[in-house]
């Protein structure tokens, strides 16, 4: 009862990093609330293969559901397992990755349990709440903090009267860390048939194809990011060249992705990847909050923008007032000259 739950996302027998990041966050929340951290892992042939990828992150109790056809993920069987487990366990908080799976499963579970769900949270905290209408006060609610309205505002959402309080978080937003404290590390293997009926397996996956990531934007020490000011797809070629000489990766703002200049898996921001590089070079990016939310923790921020008033300049360590076309080739040139 009343514990913190994390839904573990698994590709084959490999636990996705986002779930480990959530376990680390979930552990902190559980400690603050003085409750246990539980995890639920659902898949096929995972028994004996996933436990060690999950328990080190501070899990008190892990529920492993292992049966045929639970991988690849389909909505109904995973929903049934989570919903029926939650009816027994009555958790107060449930965290999921804001991934394709988490964003398919989360709303389905929340609708089944009539509980509130907040998507794409960037911060999770515990605190009190007073309902101004009823005057009722609440202690220890989960503050689900997320940018809203295209990232122009930040909203703190609470679910005062419904449990579990559910939130999804994107990959890379939280940082994973093996837990040094004590936890129970109990593992149970419930009978799958008691939680899901055969009728749930009506959607068939005919083909499932996952490629290893084409780039390592999330972990790159240097990120060269382009926005609308880059001007064209060809303009991005220059950014790729700069990233190559600096041994970095290229990302883009939502505006650049929407314009079709760069693949959407390279989008940096609240609705894309969150990065924490040593150096972030923003090329022609104005700096909407939705973008800044995905890169503000970078070490050194260099902004190249023809508009000296661009909002991103406020958080930049170096502001270069000039066009991307002019400045980026010079950076390549002088890096080559000086680095020898």
């Amino acid at each position, binding site marked *: 009862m009343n514990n913190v739950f994390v839904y573990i996302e698994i590709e084959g027998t490999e636990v996705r990093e986002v779930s480990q990041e959530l376990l680390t966050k979930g552990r902190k929340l559980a400690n603050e609330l003085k409750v246990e951290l539980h995890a639920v892992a659902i898949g096929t042939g995972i028994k004996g293969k996933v436990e060690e990828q999950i328990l080190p992150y501070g899990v008190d109790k892990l529920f492993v559901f292992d049966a045929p056809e639970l991988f690849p993920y389909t909505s109904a069987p995973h929903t049934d397992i989570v919903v029926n487990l939650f009816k027994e366990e009555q958790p107060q908080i449930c965290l999921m990755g804001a991934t394709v799976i988490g964003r398919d499963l989360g*709303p389905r579970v929340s609708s089944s349990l009539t509980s509130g769900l907040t998507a794409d949270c960037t911060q999770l905290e515990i605190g009190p709440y007073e309902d101004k209408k009823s005057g009722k006060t609440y202690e220890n609610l989960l503050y689900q903090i997320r940018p809203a309205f295209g990232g122009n505002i930040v*909203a703190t*959402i609470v679910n005062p009267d419904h449990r579990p309080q559910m939130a999804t978080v994107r990959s890379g937003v939280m940082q994973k860390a093996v837990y040094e404290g004590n936890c129970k590390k109990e593992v149970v293997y419930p009978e799958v048939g008691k939680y899901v009926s055969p009728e749930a397996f009506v959607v068939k996956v005919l083909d499932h*194809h996952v490629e290893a990531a084409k780039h390592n934007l999330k972990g790159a020490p240097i990120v060269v990011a382009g926005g609308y000011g880059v001007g064209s797809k060809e303009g991005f070629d220059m950014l790729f060249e700069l990233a190559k000489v600096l041994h970095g990766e290229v990302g883009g703002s939502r505006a650049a992705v929407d314009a079709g200049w760069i693949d959407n898996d390279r989008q940096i921001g609240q609705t894309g990847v969150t990065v924490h590089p040593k150096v972030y070079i923003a090329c022609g990016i104005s700096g909407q909050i939705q973008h800044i939310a995905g890169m503000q923790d970078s070490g050194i921020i260099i902004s190249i923008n023809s508009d000296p008033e661009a909002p991103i300049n*406020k958080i930049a360590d170096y502001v*270069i007032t000039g066009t991307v076309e002019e400045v980026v080739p010079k950076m390549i040139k002088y*890096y080559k000259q*000086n680095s020898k």
Partner: protein
Amino acid sequence: MSLKIIVLAKQVPDTRNVGKDAMTAEGTVNRAALPAIFNPEDLNALEQALRIKEQNPGTTVGLLTMGPPRAGEIIREGLYRGADTGWLLTDRLFAGADTLATSYALATAIKKIGDVDLVIGGRQAIDGDTAQVGPQVAQKLGLNQVTYAEEILKIENGKATIRRMIDGGVEVVEAPLPLVVTVNGSAAECRPQNAKLVMKYKYAACPLEVAEDDARKGLRTGRPYLNLTQWSVADVDGDPNQCGMSGSPTKVKEVQSIAFQAKESKSLTGADADIDGLIKELLNDKIIG
């Protein structure tokens, strides 16, 4: 086979290119400065529906939206692009709905419409980016769902074959009808408005959009397709406690515009000397290698 398709659509403020004038001096969003548009991924959804209609004679495509009376605009836009009909859910009781209360309202209306084979919507709306309403509608209707769809490849023998995006890859799934599908922005773009349909539906309107002294009242009397359906909570036999603010488990505790901690920054120009100096400084400090 002929199918009955409902496309879920939302009128949203265009948050994609928010300029400086879209924020007020107090840092709040100036909604008036943002144009109201047809949510982009809902247009991708409409295109999938129209393609199915072309391949399956007798199929009808209706557009369902919830919003203030002006949201009738997007029903007209849907009609211009090839939809057959539309329903506007509008009522003060719907106001302030979170995703759960929204999905309750939409699911209730879909039940009222009845005998639906396919419900297709965009993956998410650009004013909230939650992607929650589609799956929640599916759950409330007790239907299966396929999210992040890129193309509905075929519909045969009561089953849809759909290609969908997943993290780092693609999947092809087969799901029985009736079904809820949400369509990703990477799917085919929606066809443009058709001039003939614009002529036909230009004066289509919901009752709340029409003023008492409207000069075109007579025109609408003879042409039933110009009278768009408008439903209140009572019209769809909805439970007011599950609608709008009262049906929403999530509450907004506070809203802030974030002011980022301004840093002391060095200002440079694009001149060679400045760039050369910067690169040298970064190399000396071992910030870049």
